């Protein structure tokens, strides 16, 4: 038996909106420690890792480790039927092929009951290698979303370069180039508006903006975003989820095509 009760149901709604563009179907894993998900996009270039810790739920009952396959678009449609202030409860019996979402309005005068069919998804467990990141940027998530959106109107890849001076986002396309530099600023009044850069080695990596824009769908989840980079490793874009977990996006970089491949020297 699985029964999870989340008072701040809007968090779950936002989570689904943030990952459904990247992944179509995924297995949600439930254990005594929490509710989690790991899935790659269809081209295996990006990965999303979600964790909602059990302590963050008002009520968390999970008798047995279980895995529920869901189509994320369908799940998002169900969660859309919950009000922003509703309490959301997720229920499933052991061995059941359906999951039930219950939405309670704050004053308990309206209770909705939605049952969704589960899928048998033959997905694989993913091993995320341990990594030490040479550069970590923490900045307002709305700023990051704005930067990705602005740059994607100019080009389709972004070069993220981190040096002592700050973090630079660059792109170029048919109509020209664009560069946006964010310097470190920790003297602002509100801590969530600061841009903080930890760097022990300069980093410069190239990524597809299409994926970056997809990640920024998670902006409503958190005021800040943390971007971790090391040369030749995937970037990690992390949004905290209140006090109960996180959603992390991993994206493989683009590398220079070796010009010697097809243009041999005479």
């Amino acid at each position, binding site marked *: 038996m699985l029964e999870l009760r989340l008072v701040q149901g809007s968090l779950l709604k936002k989570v689904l909106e943030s990952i459904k563009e990247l992944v179509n179907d995924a297995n949600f894993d439930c254990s005594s420690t929490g509710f989690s998900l790991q899935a790659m996009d269809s081209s295996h270039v990006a990965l999303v890792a979600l964790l909602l810790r059990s302590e963050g739920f008002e009520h968390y009952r999970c008798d047995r480790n279980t895995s529920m*396959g869901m189509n994320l678009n369908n799940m998002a449609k169900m969660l859309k039927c919950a009000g922003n202030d509703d309490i959301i409860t997720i229920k499933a019996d052991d061995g059941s092929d359906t999951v039930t979402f219950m939405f309670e309005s704050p004053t308990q005068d309206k209770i909705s009951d939605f049952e969704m069919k589960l899928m*048998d998804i033959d997905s*694989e467990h993913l091993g995320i290698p341990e990594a030490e990141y040479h550069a970590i940027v923490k900045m307002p998530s709305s700023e990051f979303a704005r930067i990705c959106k602005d740059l994607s109107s100019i080009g389709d890849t972004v070069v993220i370069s981190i040096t002592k001076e700050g973090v630079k986002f660059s792109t170029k396309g048919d109509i020209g180039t664009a560069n946006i530099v964010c310097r470190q600023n920790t003297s602002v009044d509100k801590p969530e508006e600061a841009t903080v850069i930890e760097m022990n080695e300069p980093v410069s990596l190239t990524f597809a903006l299409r994926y970056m824009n997809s990640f920024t769908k998670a902006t409503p989840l958190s005021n800040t975003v943390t971007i971790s980079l090391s040369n030749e490793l995937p970037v990690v874009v992390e949004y905290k989820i209140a006090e109960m977990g996180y959603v992390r996006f991993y994206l493989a*970089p683009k590398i220079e*095509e070796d010009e010697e491949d097809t243009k041999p020297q005479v």
Partner: protein
Amino acid sequence: MGSKILPKWASKPCVMGIDEAGRGPVLGPMVYGCLYCSQSYLKTLSTLSFADSKTLKEEKREELFETLKLNDSIGWDVDVIDPRELSAKMLKKNKINLNEISHSSAMGLIDRVLKMGVLLTEVYIDTVGDAGKYEMKLSNSFPSIKFVVAKKADSLYPVVSGASIVAKVTRDRALREWVLDETAENMQRNFGSGYPGDPQTKSWLEDHKHHIFGFPSLVRFSWGTCNSYFKDAAEVLWESDNLDEDGGGSNNKNGKRQLKLSNVGFTTSKRSEEIESSGKGRCRFFQARKLEHLTYF
């Protein structure tokens, strides 16, 4: 490939040179050659008139190759990489570029010679790509060997000069004796040097292209050189192209190749190895018996 019986000198510290022939041509194989001898023989080796194969005439190269084959104090080996293999690797979904192919070939030669029981302590090799990275890659694979990776190694080190002769003569002979798989009227063998800039090669390519089937398999059709010959050729649509486009696969239009997560250390394993089978989402029969699909045994 030299004597099958391991000579006595091979159990003393040995030095190897590695070089390649036929990297740039659009025709024929790329050949990696190696030459090795004991450390104590190096001084004698340097008196044997080996030089960078590019500076020698063909007759001289052939003569030197025959000489070294008869020399009991020298070992040698080659890796002949077929043009079809080159093209297949360079065009496959997970592309393998020419540098990677080169690195693998060189490392394959070292491995082969080590497995024969030769005590290799030093290897000299012309650089392919970044010398520092290449050296690190080689040292990681063969920690007991000291590597010297340098530009113009074939001019600087006699063992590499010798290897360049081994590779060059092997390639020349392979090309000279090449048997064209394809049958057609007017199939000729006067293809010149095989380099894209050679007028004779260009003329041969023009005469031997086919509107639908392309080029004979002697040709490295992954070379950019080949594209211009097929402006008017029949277009072929591959089912997998759609999958690539749908999935937003490797996108080369801006000159950068998109890596996949598996290229950078992410691994996958069957989930069912870790989670009890539940038969979830399937009909009652399978659910009741907790049966699942198996994709491998």
